[in-house]
């Protein structure tokens, strides 16, 4: 009763304000505040810190201003370029394999076959495991002395124990394998959601037109979910550059720098060697690289643009 009265009062006042003018701003204000506080502030701070030589344990205002020294040092630092190369190689392998496998699995399990829901649940399980746990599980599986992988390689194929996490090539393979294990399901669920949302009329029409299974996939289904594929690709790309926990737990970036991704390098610079200013400068490089790559992908196919065209 009271609610109705209140509603009537509000309604009574309504004509006197211009609802169309202010309400959009009110709706986006929380999002803008979160963006500024949660995203813009850290980025601006990273830029700011990169001009100072700051260590934890000292006041920030006491940190000496070093101008562009950190950026000059970064450009001449072979370690930074080495880890950037490791990151790009890692990104290339994991994204290519994950996209291929994820799309293939989605196409296979899209049809209502028996037990599809069980398979789907099993496939997305790795996605639910925390990265630290993933790191620990695979670290022990790949362990040279007690790991299952070496045990079964020895028992079934007579292969001598391999030092998976202590050999530069094998360790790189191990982190690529682990990432594929964890993140292929992500591509899988996104793609399968896209496939299931496709209008059945189009598929039926292609059936009537006599398209075979391959033609239907390559000429109808995949082009229709193109924007979803691009979004998935973009998210994985950003993830690759953010990825840290699994490598930190599995190999710590070693042996040498063979598994040290850019973000892990930044972490080591900031917290192992206490060069927070320099680490911030490398973070700026990371932002620039991710920004550049994202822009390139969006330029090739911008899902938002496509949507607005529709």
């Amino acid at each position, binding site marked *: 009763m009271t609610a109705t009265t209140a509603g009537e009062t509000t309604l009574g006042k309504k004509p006197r304000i211009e609802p169309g003018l202010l309400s959009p701003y009110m709706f986006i204000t929380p999002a803008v505040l979160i963006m500024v506080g949660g995203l813009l502030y850290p980025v601006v701070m990273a830029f700011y810190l990169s001009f100072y030589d700051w*260590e*934890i*344990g*000292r*006041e920030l205002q006491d940190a000496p201003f070093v101008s562009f020294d950190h950026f000059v040092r970064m450009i001449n630092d072979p*370690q930074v370029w080495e880890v950037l190369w490791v990151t790009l190689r890692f990104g290339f392998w994991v994204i290519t394999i994950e996209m291929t496998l994820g799309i293939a699995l989605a196409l296979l399990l899209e049809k209502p076959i028996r037990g599809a829901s069980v398979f789907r649940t099993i496939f997305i399980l790795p996605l639910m495991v925390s990265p630290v746990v993933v790191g620990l599980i695979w670290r022990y599986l790949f*362990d*040279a*002395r*007690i790991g299952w992988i070496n045990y079964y390689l020895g028992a079934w194929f007579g292969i001598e*124990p391999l*030092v*998976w*996490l*202590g*050999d*530069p090539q094998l*360790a790189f393979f191990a982190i690529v394998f682990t990432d594929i294990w964890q993140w292929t399901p992500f591509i899988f669920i996104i793609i399968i959601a896209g496939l299931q949302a496709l209008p059945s009329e189009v598929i039926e029409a292609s059936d009537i037109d006599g398209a075979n299974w391959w033609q239907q996939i390559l000429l109808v289904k995949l082009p229709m979910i193109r924007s979803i594929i691009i979004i998935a690709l973009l998210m994985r790309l950003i993830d690759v550059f953010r990825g840290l926990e699994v490598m930190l737990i599995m*190999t*710590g*970036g*070693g*042996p*040498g*720098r063979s598994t040290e991704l850019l973000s892990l390098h930044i972490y*080591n610079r900031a*917290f*192992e*060697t*206490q*060069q927070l200013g320099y680490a911030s400068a490398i973070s700026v490089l990371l932002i620039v690289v991710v920004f550049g790559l994202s822009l390139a992908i969006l330029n090739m196919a911008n899902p938002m643009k496509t949507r607005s065209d529709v």
Partner: protein
Amino acid sequence: MKSLLKNGLLAAAGMALVASTGSAVASPYKPYEGTTLVVSWPSNAHFNAAQPLVEQFTEETGIEVEVDYLQYLKLRDRQLLEMSKPTGEYDVVAWVVMWKGEYVNKGLLTPLSEMYTNAGLVDPDYDINDVADAYLQNGGVVGGERGYLPGKSGGLYGIPFGAETSILAYRKDIFEEQGIEVPTTYDELRAAMETLHAAGIPALTSRGATGHQVTAAWLFHLAPLGGRVFDEKWNPVVNSPESVEAAAFLRDVVRTGPVGIPAFGFGDAVTAFLQGDAAIYLDSLKIAAMSRDPSRSKIDGKVGFALHPEGTRCGSETGGFALGIPDNSKNKEAAFLFIQYMTSKAGDQKMVDLGGDPVRISTLQNNADRFPEYSVVADQLPCADPDWRPLIPEWNELNVDVLGQALTRVITTDDPIQPIMDDANEKIRAIMEREGYYVWN
């Protein structure tokens, strides 16, 4: 009736006053009763074992203690953050000895002289001379020779607790079976490793993971083989013949040891020995207590202990932890009483009973019959080398970035060692130059 009540109340108040002043005289802890100390220390065997002693401290003194346990390598970031705030959370911190220079350099610790000049706090029976000198100097003294060694310019900032040196542990059964004598020199150790390897038995377990783990493994051999990281004038000498020999020795360790050393941290190296996958161990003395723990060890009763073998000199590691008081603590006196209690003669003995490691010579001597390694440790301590690694503020960078990378190349490739160490030497020189070490030259 009214006056009776009044008199009664007065009498009660008087008694309470007498009681309180009486115990203030009797107990140095009384003024701090009800205080809550927050302690930051690592989660490892020694510190976990200390929990009952912490509870006993609270029972006896009325000073509450909250312990913040962290994995030992994560302590530094957290402690630095807390200690650099105007008001920090911690009243007592346990640091790994290699951080002491940085903490003092940044003005984060309380000099213990502030406490030792307060007669009301210092236990006359404490006997600081009984604390093993190598431990005290290495963990607690900062500002001596080269900044981290003992010396007249040094000051005391911490008391060792959970400190350690390195000893050799070996499988008595395997040595007997293979007819190997316990090695006392590096030549004998090398020969023992080859004999075991030839018999198909993994020889010496070791740390080897990239970064400070592999560097620590190399440093264990560097000091006894006669090497150093720097000469007297801060010139890096990691490409000297002794350093290269230590690196070559480490390569032999990986070749003849248990599979997987290039990925081993301390825990992995220990586990390989405790699970029976290595015949020799040469690292922290903490192995002794762990080898007796049935939940971790398959080799209880089969382990012998011996001195760290000598090369051109005797030189074992000095490491582990020390306890000190952050400069921004609000409860410095109570914190000092806590540290004093934990490291007193009774506290040290209790730590032994609880399965921890003693820091006092008298405790080692009094318990030599109970634990076979104690007499070895007592003999080893005079050889413990406080300069086996340079505990300068730049050490983390040199350790993780330069040596940790170079030594990984040594143990994971067959490349010639000399050029690898030459390259590392130049990189270290560049860092030292950047940090201003050569301005006096």
